[in-house]
């Protein structure tokens, strides 16, 4: 079991290294891609700044605090885009009939799909996240950093990325039935990222519940950031729940994984 996971991981590294080598054949191209993506994502941040021109705060959140939330959401989404590119492009794999080949190899289908693509250009968004993070820090000098507050940052980023990847996987699974579902997934990924870049409490209760208990994106970013900023959570949730974020994300990912396996079996009986 452990041996298998290790072998799978090594294989993953080999496959990703291959992708990198292919992309780095055109180094200038990659560089331009990353810079372009960075510029686009930085432009996406501008409306936040514009909002805080006339209004000093958003439901009590200052510009620095929203920027912090925005930065962490960006980084986790950027990571998900980077590592989940193969899942994101799965509709293409299905349409081109390449999934048959996946089933003809002695390695698990998920593993092959995840490693089928790795887009260096996605580093642009992660860089934007880092820049916004530095910007947020400069506006929040009063944060009393503790070991736990430091720990909550990677927890937030990794859990958020995991939930985003799980959403991508759910979208990919739908492709077994509908061939093309990118739009539907985009509502949850791009839409979710956009919404979770702002304090959850600005939305109505239904949406809050949705992002807490149905698609737990809020566990990825909002809840850990509340812990960091010392803000109360909606529905009277204890703020320490931030440390349960990886578990919640993992549970959601496992559900997505089970759905995926169900989808693979469906494919094998219909071949469509």
């Amino acid at each position: 079991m452990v041996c298998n996971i290790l072998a799978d991981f090594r294989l993953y590294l080999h496959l990703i290294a291959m992708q990198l080598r292919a992309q780095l054949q055109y180094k200038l191209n990659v560089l331009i891609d990353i810079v372009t993506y960075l510029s686009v994502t930085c432009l996406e941040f501008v409306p936040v700044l514009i909002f805080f021109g006339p209004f000093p705060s958003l439901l009590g959140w200052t510009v620095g605090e929203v920027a912090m939330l925005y930065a962490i959401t960006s980084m986790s989404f950027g990571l998900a885009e980077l590592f989940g590119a193969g899942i994101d492009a799965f509709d293409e794999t299905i349409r081109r009939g390449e999934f048959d080949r996946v089933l003809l190899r002695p390695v698990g289908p998920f593993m092959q799909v995840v490693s089928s693509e790795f887009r260096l250009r996605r580093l642009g968004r992660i860089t934007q996240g880092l820049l916004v993070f530095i910007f947020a820090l400069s506006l929040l000098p009063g944060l009393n950093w503790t070991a736990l507050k430091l720990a909550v940052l990677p927890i937030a980023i990794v859990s958020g990325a995991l939930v985003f990847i799980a959403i991508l996987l759910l979208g990919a699974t739908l492709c077994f039935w509908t061939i093309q579902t990118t739009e539907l997934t985009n509502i949850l990924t791009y839409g979710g990222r956009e919404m979770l870049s702002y304090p959850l409490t600005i939305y109505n209760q239904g949406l809050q519940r949705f992002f807490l208990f149905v698609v737990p994106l809020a566990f990825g970013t909002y809840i850990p950031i509340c812990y960091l900023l010392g803000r109360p959570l909606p529905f009277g949730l204890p703020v320490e729940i931030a440390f349960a974020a990886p578990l919640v994300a993992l549970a959601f990912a496992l559900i997505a994984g089970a759905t995926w396996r169900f989808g693979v079996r469906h494919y094998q009986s219909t071949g469509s």
Partner: protein
Amino acid sequence: MEAMIEAEGLSKTFRVARRRPGLLGGLRSVVDPQVRIVHAVRDLSLHIERGEMIGLVGPNGAGKSTTIKMLTGILVPTGGRVRVAGLDPMRQRRELASRIGVVFGQRSQLWWDLPLIDSLRLLRHLYRVPEKRHSDNLARLRNMLDLDEFLDTPVRQLSLGQRMRGDLAAALLHDPELLYLDEPTIGLDVVAKARIREFLLAINAGQGVTVLLTTHDMDDVETLCPRMLIIDHGRKLYDGGVTEIRERFGGERMLIAVLDPVEIAAIPHDAQDQPVLSDLPEGVHQVQAEAPRIWLAFSRDSLPVHELVAWLGARYRLRDVTFQEPEIEDVIRRIYEEGLLLGRDEVSVQVS
């Protein structure tokens, strides 16, 4: 010895939802789908020994791909029993995958943007082949398929024939006992076809690899496979020797000669004002004419091709000569025409 492939009563039905036309129809199809049942494969039984090289032929949509997909575990059969290399393809798909090789003529498994050698190296990790065995196999395949001249070329720049050679190497690096080939010579020129065939014969004879290939090209089957299976509409029509079927239904080859336009005017014409060649050699007859083209049908054994060409060349000024091999569709049509599928119980024609 245990058989390589054993299938009994294999069948696969698909439920195909039919869309109604128009917007309202589209909506109705979502709520109340009109489902059509398609029998892709019906009651197919197969027995293939280790070391055999066997051709699976049939027209488009006959069920060839579906059959191969069920034999590899990609698709779960609706009914029947199947074992490949002693394994159950459905339950032991991944285990089976490391013991078989698959080549799709139209779809490469190589990484498009990378040099061929990178793909071949990466496959070692995908199939977990020990390093020593992999490098031995690679050396052997490089030599047999002459890969060295384009090993460092990105796959997208390879010619179709080179890519096919690369794909064959990729499918054989993990020493599969069984090789499935789906249209391995499609789109290739004569030289490339000959080369692929030669290679397949060599690995079948040398390494004892069992080969199952689907093709449209009767020449593939004739040069490679002692035995063939014909399927149509998901049913097995024929299972037996290739020579027998050629003799019984193989039909005639066609030679299309283009004559000199001036000369052809001098040849006697028939009622439809088309030229008629007289005193043709025995076994050759004119089928059609459309000046300056003339179609001549002749059976394989009546006289060798070069003699017919020489005969024509001695009498007429030949501008061009092309050949048409009997298509598999012709063979199948003849099987139907000759009424060999009489009773329901005699679905397949066995020639032993």
